[in-house]
């Protein structure tokens, strides 16, 4: 466990705090009607997303989801461009055309968030096929939710990747609900990971609120996948603290349930671990937190000062 370097832990703590600060800001924007569209926040799931990304190499690839802010921050991202995209600015990752649900940075291997539940499965499989055919040694991290595990694309993707032995980690963030519907109403089994056996691949269950566990296990798993052994299915158990999207009265779950999970805050857990293991002290961590918040404020200023896309751009980039 102590093998995680201070550098990594610092970066992990930083990214998790950035994600939290980013989403709190987004939530604030939405509450005040300052952004249009909708958004899906992952507060509570930061360890699950960020530690998983960080266990991979920088040049590995990933597909992200509608609930993808932590995922792409985990991959390493320019916060200015991200906030700018959220605000629909021309300086954003997608020149203002994508918004919260489509943050992508293909050049660095972020193949995009996806508005379609399960929409990333095929893209991840194809990206993994490229890595295999070009023998790049890179692997692909495919994020999806518990709800997405009931889409046909899940099945077809795991099957194809398994017969072709493609280097992809199917990473299910099981936050217990698909929108309003709890997992026990949409699946007749205990764990999403149990589905791995249907494809003859390993399945793993990890505590998605424990960044150390996520990172450590994902390191091993990534090694296995990089070794040419084919895909794996990982289930990261976690929970979203906020509603599904901006307009969710959350009548489908109890306040108590939410409170229980808030006690397992992934950021607080990591903080505790870092302090208890004498990696950094509270002051250092506070500074990281403050910097994270500051980084978001700076990004907001950058975005606010950025131009809107010119109207002519509406017809640009349909075709290459």
């Amino acid at each position, binding site marked *: 466990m102590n093998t995680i370097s201070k550098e990594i832990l610092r970066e992990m703590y930083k990214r998790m705090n950035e994600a939290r600060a980013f989403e709190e800001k987004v939530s604030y924007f939405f509450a005040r009607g300052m952004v249009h569209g909708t958004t899906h926040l992952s507060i509570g799931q930061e360890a699950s997303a960020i530690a998983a990304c960080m266990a991979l190499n920088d040049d590995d690839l990933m597909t992200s989801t509608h609930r993808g802010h932590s995922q792409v921050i985990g991959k390493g991202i320019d916060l200015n461009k991200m906030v700018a995209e959220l605000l629909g600015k021309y300086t954003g990752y997608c020149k203002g055309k994508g918004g919260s649900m489509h943050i992508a940075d293909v050049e660095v291997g972020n193949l995009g968030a996806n508005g379609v539940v399960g929409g990333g499965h095929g893209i991840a499989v194809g990206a993994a096929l490229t890595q295999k055919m070009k023998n790049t040694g890179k692997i692909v991290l495919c994020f999806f939710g518990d709800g997405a595990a009931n889409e046909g694309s899940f099945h077809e993707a795991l099957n194809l990747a398994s017969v072709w032995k493609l280097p992809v980690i199917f990473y299910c963030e099981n936050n217990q609900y698909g*929108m309003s*519907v709890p997992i026990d109403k949409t699946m007749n089994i205990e764990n999403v990971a149990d589905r791995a056996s249907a494809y003859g691949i390993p399945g793993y269950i990890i505590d998605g609120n424990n960044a150390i566990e996520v990172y450590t296990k994902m390191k091993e798993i990534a090694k296995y996948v990089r070794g040419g052994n084919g895909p794996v299915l990982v289930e990261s158990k976690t929970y979203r603290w906020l509603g599904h999207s901006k307009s969710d009265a959350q009548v489908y779950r109890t306040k108590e349930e939410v409170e229980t999970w808030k006690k397992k805050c992934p950021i607080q857990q990591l903080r505790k671990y870092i302090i208890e293991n004498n990696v950094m002290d509270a002051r250092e961590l506070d500074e990281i937190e403050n910097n994270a918040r500051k980084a978001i404020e700076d990004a907001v200023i950058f975005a606010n000062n950025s131009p809107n896309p010119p109207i002519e751009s509406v017809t640009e980039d349909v075709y290459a």
Partner: protein
Amino acid sequence: MREMTYKEAINLAMREEMRRDPDVFLMGEDVGIYGGAFGVSVGLIEEFGEERVRDTPISEAIITGAAAGAAVTGMRPIVEIMFMDFTTLAMDALVNQAAKMRYMFGGKAKVPMTLRCAGGSGTGAAAQHSQSLEAWFCHIPGLKVVVPGTPKDAKGLLKAAIRDDNPVVFVEQKTLYKEKGMVPEEDDFIIPLGVGEIKKEGKDVTVVSYGRMLPRVLKVAEELEREGISVEVVDPRTLVPLDKEIIINSVIKTGRAVLVNEACKTGGYLGEIASVIVESEAFDYLDAPIVRLAGLDVPIPYNPELEKAVVPSEEQIRAGILKVLNR
């Protein structure tokens, strides 16, 4: 008659039909306690219970296929596909199965199902949550296609759709959900599929439009009226079967036609409507080329200004009408 929103009208139509006929039921993602992503089915699970208001896993293909299977064996399912964009996941079930079963089986089956979905842009939901794909369904024999533009039409047409013995794709318009209008409350208020309506009479030019664009067209038409230009607004309401007569007769009367919808122009249903006009006797009455005003041929962008620029604006509709009048 009572004033209610488009959304409430749809809710009421489902409620009435479910009360009337125990074979009618609703299934879809989050249609239960959540009331559907847009709140259209709010309250139904409380009245009809979990057996008849069924939350499903996120599995569009099988929900739609199961609707076909339930329909062919005696139920009258309503399926909600949350966004029209996700019908892409259900096309085999809808197009190869539901639409064709009756014909393939030599007329010995009927498939009374209604697939409801929310179409259109304007909510900042970007490229994968904003499409208007009605033209696809119109191209498939065996399917009927409805796009209501007012609360009243929404109620009357949905009831007709549910009672119809064929698969009906019922395209709701996200941006109309909160629009209000007077709606008959009688249980037997039905608007038959295939019957259009003249939403405003006029004599100088015919504008054919439906769904979300309708209020926009009507607003422009009223403005122009005050300026002395008499615009007739024809709403086909159902795209398949299409009330060709009402369109053709109007164009014969006015000699000019502007067609307005939100879907991408290329390959959209306006091409069909234009062709129906030019193939008919109305061709000889046309005093000017038909003008199609449709969405740009681009995916829907996120930025609100770009998003607005994609669909015909009031100014563009006005300009289109004036153009066809050579003014």
